[in-house]
């Protein structure tokens, strides 16, 4: 009898329709507004993507407030790197107690973006930034260091210049 009534009065269908109906109304009313977004998909090439805060992008070196490189060449990142993409040469600078890197090479073609280097760093001097459009035509574009304009460790590099977002 209970089964019979359940077939006769479609409560389950009503519940399902209510669920999809509320989702439809939420997205329908907010789809074209800039501020509130209820939908989970993103219009990537035209609209820049919102990434999660812990997204692991390309390795970047940080500078402190005085513009000094934070890295002290403890080589922790170089040692822990599973694919050995980091090469550091240390040097001295006047007025600075700790060592300063004269070379910090990062070969991104082999990087697996595991973030071990950032975890191992005791001075918070490197992070993985949010740059993810990392395709390039030449192998040289992937070797990133401290020198040069196009491929340096401090800013977004030229590697992702074929990004859809900032073309033209």
């Amino acid at each position, binding site marked *: 009898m209970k089964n019979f009534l359940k077939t006769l009065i479609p409560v389950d269908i009503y519940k399902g*329709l209510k669920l*999809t109906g509320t989702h439809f109304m939420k997205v329908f009313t907010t789809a074209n507004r800039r501020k509130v977004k209820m939908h989970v998909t993103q219009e990537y090439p*035209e609209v820049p993507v919102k990434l999660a805060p812990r997204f692991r992008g390309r390795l970047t070196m940080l500078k402190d407030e005085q513009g000094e490189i934070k890295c002290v060449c403890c080589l922790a990142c170089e040692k822990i790197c599973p694919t050995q993409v980091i090469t550091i040469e240390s040097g001295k600078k006047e007025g600075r107690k700790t060592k300063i890197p004269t070379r910090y090479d990062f070969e991104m073609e082999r990087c697996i973006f595991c973030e071990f280097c950032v975890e191992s760093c005791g001075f918070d001097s490197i992070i993985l930034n949010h740059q993810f459009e990392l395709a390039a035509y030449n192998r040289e574009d992937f070797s990133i260091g401290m020198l040069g304009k196009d491929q340096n460790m401090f800013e977004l590099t030229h590697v992702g210049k074929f990004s859809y977002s900032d073309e033209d």
Partner: protein
Amino acid sequence: MNAAPVTMTLLQTCVMAVLQAICVVLFVFIIVPLTIYAERKVLGFAQDRLGATRIAGHRVGLTGWLNRGMWRMGKVPFLSYWRGLPMLVGDIAKLFLKEDIVPTKADRAIFLVAPALSLIASVVVFAAVSFYPGALFTFPKIVPIIGGLPFNGCITDMNVGLLFILGIASVGVYGIVLGAWASNSKYPLLGGLRSGAQIVSYEVPLTLSLLAPVVLTGTLNFNKMTLALATEMPLYAVPILFVSFFVYFTCGFAETNRMPFDMPEAENELVAGFHTEYSGMRFGFFYLAEYINMVVVTAIASAFFLGGPYLAPFGLHRYIMHVPFLGAPNGLWFVAKMILLLFTFIWVRGTIPRYRYDQVMAVAWKYLIPFTLILVLLAAMVRYAAPALPVA
């Protein structure tokens, strides 16, 4: 309501019929692509997506090349990006341009005729559907042949309109079954057989659920039925109409092969069902026929159960009869109700997954048919109890 009958010559009748047919075909071929567009968007929104938003790539192809100029100017290229609406043009262009392949072993003549049969059966139904009782407007005397004649809300106001609709609508299954058989392939054949069994089964409760309004009104004339159902029903007939509306709408899903009952093209079992071997515009015919069938089902549901051109559904019209604008019959109400029901079609598709085949048949034979028989019995009792109801 109906104006005094105007005597028309044969030529006048023909011109009038052609004009009205053109109007109806235009209406159908505007509302069907919009339904296809709405299907994409509504399904997307219901699943927290955006649906179709563009037709072109960013820089690929002709549209991409055009769009690149727009991006350079700092504007979103409206031509191909306007909320995915231009995708309709792309759809139609694709259907026309694609190669039309006929399998070598197919039964050629039947293979070619079947989609047309399916499409014609679904379009011809509109000959008897009335969008508005009486004349929409009268042509001025200056118009050469048809001056002074009224432009009616329906093409033909025939005495057995409902019978005509049901008869023609059931021809549509021939298109599916013949096309499936002529494909000479096992999946279409299975899909066609399923579809034959399913549509024939569901035609019984569909017709029986429409029999309750017929019994209540005592006529098969589309206009008279709409008028009587909207204005002259006693209050205790409302529950019957309410329930038979839901039964009719459920059967409508099965008749149009829509999602909870789309056995004929169960794509995870039968590739694409009856239209597996079809391509190009012939596939497009089947595709269009499905959507036109949806429009037909919604038109009949909104005419008989939701009051048609009268705003209040289920015969509740008398309570708003004297409200100035809302009380008067209006073709817009009819179309608005159709759009609402078309939305429901898509909404249900986004909600309910496909039933198993034996469940589909069990619902028809074990539940809906006895249920509708009881409804017809109740309707007969209402008619017996209410002598005020019109006699045809």
